[in-house]
């Protein structure tokens, strides 16, 4: 039996509500349901059948703003008379704010909430929308989904490794955390170094490689093509976690990556995010084939890139004319966010940033709000509605259906000026939290908010353990679009370290919080138990050689 949605506190009914329900049951609600009218964007209100403007029955003042309907005698009253009504007529305690379809208790003088009433309201929405539009999945389906979500996390330690017993861990001798090691800059490669540092310390990604998830001997690609990017990533992990503290040169890895990504193979300053995508895409393309037999799609692929980084985005497009919602799902490797700066249009139509830079602060949550906000598609972007059979003005809204174990957020720090035909970097400070709760951005939450946060099962029944994240790495950039420098911060055993190519230094939290973030890496809180922090739980694998006979490690 599933628990109620843990995100809600089910409100305690007031005595008057309890009495009303005891006496009248749902008959009043059902009668009200017939008068409810929905709108395409999820609003609901009560309309009189003859469409006459409701007036207060007692003072006839329709200019009074808020009109209520008595659940007992169906009279309309303004706010003042709503408070007087229960005193005049005993038992007439409950009302509905007709503009918002919200319950009001005339004796408590407050808006009240009843799950059963919300069910009635949502049932009305469901009558209008096609079946299944509002998360009414059967329990059987929910069970399957739940299992699938859980299986993505933390199984690497069990299945792959040939060694089932942990070997005495000699790495722990050093007082510094394992894997902490500088990376030599091979010539404008700090874009690569900064991302590598983050990935080296992404718990599930790290655990996979350190426990022998990719075996060098068994690697078919390496024996056939003599080229396997994942083997080379494995080599980087081995070197970085070998206990050696002098900086490592990821030359072999660079060589390997360039062979896989021809278009990015050049000696020049590049973008860290582009590298991140390129690297994970390459892992997927190579690994995905050998594992799944064919190029797996986002949902079913079991390559390490997918298991660790891939989530699922949902896009809802609502037709403003008929309310029909078209939903599509897309896998994502990371989320690119626009900065939540206010951009105002001047009279001449040019875009100008609001000058009150001091007042409005940019925050990561603000960017996520912006990302999931309903967006009116302009009249030049009318989309085809299946129900209306023509192009209509539409509303688009994004939300996250499945969160990956490692959530990567990319901040789009650039803006274009179409007038001047140039782009520039936005150096504006972006506040970001160390603990991130992604619940409000889940599809179930977005859906719920769209329908007024009614008490109803919107399909989001994973407990919030999978929505809570903790930061572990930040990639920062300083400089301009054309020329700059990347530096990473990683958090190991609750201490932050600055990774500036070969230079590793300790920094305090404040330095990280105040930095100019470009890519932020969060991992699910459940992955940060004590065991995963000190790595002694990981068996050492045969593939993880301490000294590698290739360029870059001496």
């Amino acid at each position, binding site marked *: 039996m599933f628990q109620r949605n843990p*995100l809600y*506190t089910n*409100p305690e009914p007031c005595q008057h509500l309890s009495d009303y329900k005891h006496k009248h049951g749902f008959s009043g609600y059902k009668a009200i349901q017939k008068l409810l009218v929905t709108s395409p964007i999820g609003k609901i209100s009560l309309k009189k059948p003859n469409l006459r403007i409701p007036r207060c029955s007692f003072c006839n003042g329709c200019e009074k*703003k*808020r009109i209520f309907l008595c659940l007992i005698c169906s009279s309309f009253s303004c706010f003042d008379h709503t408070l007087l009504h229960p005193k005049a007529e005993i038992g007439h305690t409950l009302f509905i*704010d007709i503009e*918002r379809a919200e319950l009001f208790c005339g004796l408590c003088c407050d808006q009240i*909430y009843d799950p059963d009433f919300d069910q009635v309201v949502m049932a009305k929405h469901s009558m209008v929308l096609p079946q299944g539009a509002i998360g009414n999945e059967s329990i059987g389906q929910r069970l399957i989904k739940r299992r699938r979500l859980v299986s993505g996390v933390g199984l690497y330690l069990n299945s792959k490794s040939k060694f089932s017993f942990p070997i005495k861990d000699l790495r722990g001798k050093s007082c510094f955390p394992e894997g902490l090691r500088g990376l*030599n*800059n*091979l*010539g*404008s*490669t*700090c*874009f690569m170094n900064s991302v590598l540092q983050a990935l080296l310390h992404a718990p599930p990604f790290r655990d996979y490689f350190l426990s022998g998830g990719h075996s060098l001997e068994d690697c078919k690609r390496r024996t056939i093509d003599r080229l396997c990017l994942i083997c080379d990533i494995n080599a980087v992990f081995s070197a970085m976690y070998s206990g050696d*503290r002098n*900086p490592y*040169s990821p*030359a*072999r890895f660079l*060589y390997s990556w*360039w062979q896989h990504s*021809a*278009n990015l*193979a*050049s*000696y020049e*300053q*590049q*973008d*860290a995010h*582009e590298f991140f995508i390129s690297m994970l895409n390459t892992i997927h393309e190579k690994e995905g084939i050998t594992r799944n037999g064919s190029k797996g799609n986002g949902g079913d692929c079991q390559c390490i890139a997918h298991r660790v980084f891939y989530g699922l985005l949902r896009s809802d497009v609502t037709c403003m004319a008929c309310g029909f919602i078209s939903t599509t799902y897309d896998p994502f490797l990371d989320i690119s966010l626009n900065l939540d700066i206010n951009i105002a249009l001047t009279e001449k139509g040019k875009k100008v940033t609001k000058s009150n830079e001091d007042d409005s602060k940019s925050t990561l*949550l603000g960017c996520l709000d912006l990302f999931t906000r309903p967006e009116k598609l302009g009249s030049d972007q009318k989309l085809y509605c299946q129900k209306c059979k023509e192009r209509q003005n539409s509303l688009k809204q994004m939300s996250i259906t499945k969160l990956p174990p490692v959530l990567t957020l990319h901040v*789009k720090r*650039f803006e*274009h000026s179409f007038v001047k035909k140039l*782009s520039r970097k936005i150096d504006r400070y972006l*506040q970001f*939290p160390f*603990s991130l*709760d992604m*619940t*409000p951005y889940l599809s179930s939450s977005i859906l719920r908010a769209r329908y007024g*946060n009614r008490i109803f099962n919107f399909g989001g029944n994973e407990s919030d353990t999978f929505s809570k994240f903790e930061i572990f790495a930040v990639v920062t*950039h300083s*400089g*301009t679009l*054309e*020329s700059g*420098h*990347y530096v990473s911060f990683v958090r190991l055993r609750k201490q932050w370290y600055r990774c500036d*190519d070969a*230079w590793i230094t300790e920094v305090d*939290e*404040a330095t990280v*919080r*105040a930095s100019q973030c470009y890519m932020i890496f969060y991992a699910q809180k459940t992955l940060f138990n004590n065991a995963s922090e000190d790595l002694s739980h990981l068996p050492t694998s045969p593939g993880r050689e301490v000294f590698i006979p290739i*360029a*870059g490690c001496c």
Partner: protein
Amino acid sequence: MSVPNEENLSSQSQLPSHFFWDLLDSIIVDVASESHRVAKLGLDANLEEDDEELKLSAQARVRVADPSNNSNEANGKYVVDIFGQTHPTVANEIFECMNCGRSIAAGRFAPHLEKCMGKGRKARLKVTRSSSGAQNQNRYSRGGSVSTHTNHSSNNSSVNRLANGNAGFEEHSNGTTHP
């Protein structure tokens, strides 16, 4: 139908103002009603934590901006790292290039590899200049794909891209197509 007379005119001129305040009141109640519901149902449970994060970040910025707090960074470069090591601006570890076998210093490995593998702008340009080249193919084709179409996805100011640098190099890439 009433004929406009003095009384009607004055009340008519008040109508737009009247409607505006009506609409505004309605919007205000909308927001109040929604916030009330969110609060009563406990949907804003994270409010305190969010505020705490904001506070910590604000404090952090103040601390970092204070020059008396910055230690051990001389012009952004450090004297020693946490392992007690110092490093030159250009990494001087020497190893063998896995493409040609030559010994290369780490900090110059990328530019070397680019030419060695026949990748990058300069290699592509050299090919396109004398586009007749079967002999050019032989010269540059080691491991790299020599193609006359130029894919400048990483070259152009690629408006979505933040380029990086190496603190030691003066190289300015981007846009310049000539070696």
